[in-house]
Structures are given as structure tokens and as C-alpha cells.
């Protein structure tokens, strides 16, 4: 699908606003949008929100044969997928120019900077090494995918745990996560990319351009740096001519930003570690805010409560004897068959006859009582004349049991 064209009035307005040092969302020239990092339940899964831009990175690993010219090193593989979810102009499967550019930039930023110790990924030299694969999926494009992708990739790599391996002579044992705790990768440093957008032939620059600013920019400068002020990669696209002092100024700004972002990543990793240790819930469901208009939450609706007590007592009168309140001790009629309670024999209903036979044949004692109560309630349901299924929280529990 083609993207919505940019109208002339929008372009003029944006350029005039940038000349007056005003950005669309009220940021300053060197401000980043709000950066939020959340982790999934698996190790190595990370969501990054940069304003409205949203990306997800997933790290996985497998044992493969190493490259011939590097027999003692593991393999790192990076992949950025531009999903059609992110923007109507991204097509599934097609390698667009932007996708090639982003992939190349991410590889240069992370692989060439040697931020991961690949020697430690070697298991048997020349035969088996770990191949670590980082997949970054773009979920929403509101500009500056590169920065979000680099933060997501390095955070996911720091978060990831690979299975433990033991070598005894010729034997190699790979332990599952249950047998031995998986171990983290050895990350030397965290390269983060910072993007600068240039306007009016390099006169004005903005950090972290949003989507509309990206559409009117002349060129883009990407500097990947770590917190030790080492430049890992620098790339300029768009064909603008930059002066030396402009590039120096950008690198100084980038070092400030990178130290802030690295601090944020470390804090997020620590929080996640603490949450996992404490056994608390972690994962995406916990990190989603609950009070947005699009969240699945409704105000309480009024419920017909006028004759609930009447129908309730009616149901109780109509139903047969209630199931026993305590669980009777299991009985073993035949070796290999356990029975708790009397099953459905006490109801004596014709429709339930087939179910009766099936119930008696089942031997697991634990499920028996639960199934008895469940089927008993569904039986009650058939007898009730009117069942109001509403979204009220009071009736929620009952509805679940009916299901």
C-alpha cells in the first residue's frame, strides 16, 4: 500500500517550525522521546517503546558448525523485519531499501564493534559453536526505527541466557533450563545508536526525528557509541555535506545521550532481575497500562438484581441433593481404578445416563469432584428459566464455572 503523501502545507509548516526551533510534540532540539523498556517472560525477549515507535527483539541460539575461517568463534546473526503492522508502506517479504539499510547499520553497530565475546560461544572447536540469532520486529513506525532497534537488540542480548554446556573428554552435554540455570552471554560493552536529522542543507539538526520530521529531512547521521565514549559506527545518509565541527558536536551530544540510555537499560535489567527473583509476575501483560481508553476495561454496568434471590432459591429447590460439602475418601473398587464420591449415580436423570457411564470409567480421583460440581452447575443452568449473562464483576465467577 502506498503511504499517505505529504502535503505541501505540512512540509512548509514543519520546516518553518524547525527554523523557529519548535518541534511537533513540544520537545527541545536535543530531546529524546520517552523510552520504555519491558521484558517478556522468556529470557531474551524485549520490547522497546520510543514515543510511539515500538519494536520487539527476540534472541535465540542453537548449536551449529562454525565458519571455516573462524573455527573457534561463535556466530552472531542479526535480522530486522519491517512488519506491515508498523506502516502501510512496509510490505511483507519484500526487501525494501529501508530494510536493507537498517539491517546493515545494525550489523555494523553490533557485530563489528565486538560487543559480544564470540570466543566464549565456542563449544567444540571446529565442530560445534553457538549461533546466537537476534530478530528485531518493528511493530509501529513513528520515526527513528534505527535507535529503537539498536536499544532493543543490545538489551535483549544482555537479557538472554543460553543453555549451560559441559564437556567431558569427547562427550558434550547440553543441559536444559530445568537441569542447570542458563548462563548469560558475555557482553563487553553496549553500543547504542543515536540518530540526527538534518534540515535546510545542514543548518538545523534534530535528535530522534519522528515520522513526519523524517519525511522532510535532508539527511540522517547515525552515530553508534558506548558509554565509554568509543564510537562503534558512524554513518551518514541522504547525501548532505557535513562540516567537521558539526560531526564533532553531534558526537558530543551522542555521548551524553548514550550514557543516559545505558543507565536506563541497566536499570530496566536490574528491575527485571529483581522481579524474577522475587517470583513476582513478569512479562508483557504486567507492563501494559490498564487505564488507557483502548485497554479491556469497562465501567460497571447495571445488573438486573430484582429477582436473583427468587431464582436462586428456586434453583436450589428444583435441583437434586447438593453434592457433599466434604470430599469423601477415595475408594478402590478395582485395582487401578480410584473413585472419589459417587459420581452421577445419585441424580438419576435420563439425559445424563451416557455421561454416567463415562464418569464411572474415569479413574482419576482428583478430577472427579471438580467435574461433579461443574456438571452439577450446568445442570442447574438448564433448569433456570432466564440467565442474564452480563459483564458485571459480581457475576463473573459464576459465568466462568458455567463454561
Amino acid at each position, binding site marked *: 500500500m502506498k503511504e499517505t503523501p505529504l*502535503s*505541501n*502545507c*505540512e512540509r512548509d*509548516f514543519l520546516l518553518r517550525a524547525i527554523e*523557529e526551533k519548535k518541534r*511537533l*510534540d513540544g520537545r527541545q532540539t536535543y530531546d529524546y522521546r520517552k523510552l520504555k523498556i519491558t521484558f517478556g517472560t522468556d529470557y531474551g525477549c524485549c520490547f522497546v517503546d520510543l514515543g510511539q515507535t515500538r519494536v520487539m527483539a527476540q534472541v535465540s541460539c542453537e548449536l551449529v558448525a562454525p565458519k571455516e575461517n573462524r573455527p573457534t568463534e561463535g556466530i552472531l546473526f542479526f535480522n530486522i523485519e519491517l512488519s506491515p503492522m508498523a506502516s502501510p508502506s512496509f510490505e511483507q517479504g519484500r526487501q525494501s531499501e529501508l530494510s536493507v539499510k537498517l539491517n546493515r547499520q545494525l550489523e555494523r553497530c553490533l557485530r563489528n564493534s565486538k560487543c559480544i565475546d564470540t570466543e566464549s560461544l565456542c563449544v567444540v572447536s571446529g565442530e560445534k559453536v553457538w549461533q546466537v540469532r537476534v530478530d528485531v520486529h518493528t511493530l509501529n513506525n513513528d520515526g527513528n526505527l534505527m535507535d529503537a532497534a539498536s536499544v532493543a537488540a543490545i538489551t535483549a542480548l544482555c537479557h538472554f541466557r543460553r543453555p549451560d554446556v559441559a564437556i567431558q573428554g569427547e562427550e558434550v552435554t547440553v543441559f536444559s533450563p530445568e537441569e542447570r540455570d542458563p548462563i548469560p552471554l558475555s557482553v563487553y560493552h553496549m553500543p547504542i545508536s543515536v540518530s540526527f536529522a538534518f534540515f535546510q542543507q545542514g543548518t538545523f539538526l534534530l535528535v530522534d526525528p519522528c515520522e513526519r520530521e523524517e519525511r522532510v529531512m535532508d539527511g540522517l547521521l547515525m552515530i553508534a557509541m558506548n558509554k565509554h565514549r568509543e564510537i562503534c559506527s558512524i554513518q551518514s545518509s541522504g547525501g548532505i555535506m557535513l562540516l567537521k565541527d558539526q560531526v564533532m558536536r553531534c558526537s558530543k551530544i551522542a555521548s551524553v545521550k548514550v550514557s543516559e540510555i545505558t543507565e536506563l537499560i541497566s536499570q530496566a535489567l536490574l528491575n527485571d532481575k529483581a522481579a524474577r527473583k522475587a517470583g513476582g509476575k513478569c512479562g508483557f501483560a504486567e507492563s501494559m497500562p490498564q487505564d*488507557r481508553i483502548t485497554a479491556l476495561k469497562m465501567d460497571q454496568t447495571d445488573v438486573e438484581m430484582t429477582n436473583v434471590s427468587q431464582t436462586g432459591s428456586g434453583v436450589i429447590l428444583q435441583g437434586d441433593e447438593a453434592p457433599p460439602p466434604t470430599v469423601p475418601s477415595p475408594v478402590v473398587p478395582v485395582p487401578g481404578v480410584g473413585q472419589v464420591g459417587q459420581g452421577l449415580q445419585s441424580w438419576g436423570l435420563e439425559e445424563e445416563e451416557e455421561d454416567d457411564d463415562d464418569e464411572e470409567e474415569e479413574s482419576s480421583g482428583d478430577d472427579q469432584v471438580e467435574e461433579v460440581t461443574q456438571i452439577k452447575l450446568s445442570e442447574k443452568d438448564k433448569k433456570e428459566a432466564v440467565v442474564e449473562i452480563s459483564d458485571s464483576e459480581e457475576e463473573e465467577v459464576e459465568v466462568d464455572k458455567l463454561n
Partner: protein
Amino acid sequence: MFSSLKEKIGEVLLPGDEFVFESEDTIFLTDNVKPERPVCGPGLRQSGNRLVVSKSGVLRHKPPHTFWMDSQQWRYVPAKAETVIGIVTSKSGDIFKVDVGGSEQASLSYLAFEGATKRNRPNVQVGDLVFAQFTVANKDMEPELVCIDGSGRANGMGVFGGGGLLLKVSLGLVRRLLAPQSDIRSDLEQLFPCELVVGMNGRIWVRASTIQQTLIISNLLQSCDTLTAPQRREQFRKLQKGGL
């Protein structure tokens, strides 16, 4: 006859909810009396004497017989006689191709402007904004726009001048802004003078005297989508007190 419908006004209904009317059995000898038929707006569909809800939302009513579903969506589907803001994407032969945010681009003829003749062509460039209404908009044909009304007058439509900012908002907000007594509009009037063009395809064009004011209004309008009425009034009040 509409009692079952009137009970549900203001309630949330889901697609598939049905209302059945009993039709009149007696035949009137005089033609003056017509059976009352409900006028179905968007989200309601009528087949015979059954009225079926086809979109989830809140049921609204306007006396005497008009009912419709008030639902929220962002994607625009062209409908006849709706005024929209379009972006001109190409000029070819006698027509402009205009992007209105729908699945297809609409066509706008050179001659569909006020005072346009074959010699006197309108001054429209690629990338300009136009405010036009649909003459043809159904799912089988390419949509067509015109910038004149039935009698040949522009009536506020046509190509935009320079300046201003275009925003994309939800269709619900656009309808709220265009309603006859609109709270949001009256709140905006008290802030500072601005020019506002609201297209039914979810696009709004804003222009105020300074860039800062334009940015303020555009951010306000975009946040109005997700604010409740008291929150919105709070925001406006804070702005008025804080000045610029």
C-alpha cells in the same frame, strides 16, 4: 412501534442484535398515512421489517425516526455527500487524483471548481490540500469529488491557501467537532482565534496566528480523542491560566 428501539437508546449494542417490527396489516384507503419507517443511519441495516445492528457502538436517536450507531474508528470509508480534506497526488489529463484516506484515490475534475472553464483552469498543484465533497462513493466505483455544490457555488470548498498544519484524528472526534452544539468547539473558541477546517475523513487543518499556537491546538485536538469531558476541560483551563 419503535418502543423496542427507544428502550435501547444510549446503550451499547453489538453486531447481530435485531429488532423486529410488526407491520400494519390493515390497508389504508387514503394515501395520506404512510407507515412509519425508521430512518437508519450508519451501523444499522434494514431488511424487510427487521432492523439489524452491523457495527458495535452506542445507539443514538434523533426525533422523529432517525436512529444510528455511534461507533469509533480511524479508517475512513467514502460516503456520498460527505465533505473531506484530500491531498492532490497527481494531475493527469482532465482530472486530479486525490488521496482521501480510503482504499482508493478519488478523482476530481478540473471543471468541478467555482468559475472554472476549459480556458480558466484552477490553480491546483500536486501536494495541495482540497476541501471537497463526494458525488459518487460506493464500493463498486472509483470515488468522485467535486468542489462545488448543486447550484455551482463553492460554498466553502476548494483548494487551501498556504500555512497551517494537517492532523489525523479519529472519526468520532471529527463528528463531535462538527455536531451543532459542540463542547470541544466552544472550549476552543475561548482559547485564541484560529482557523479550523474539519474533514469527515478524520483530517483536520489548523491555522493560528503563530506557529506555537498552531502546535498547541493540534496537540490539544489529538489528545481530545482519549480525554473524557472533565479531563479535557481541565486541560483547557490549565492552558488558559498558564498562558502560552
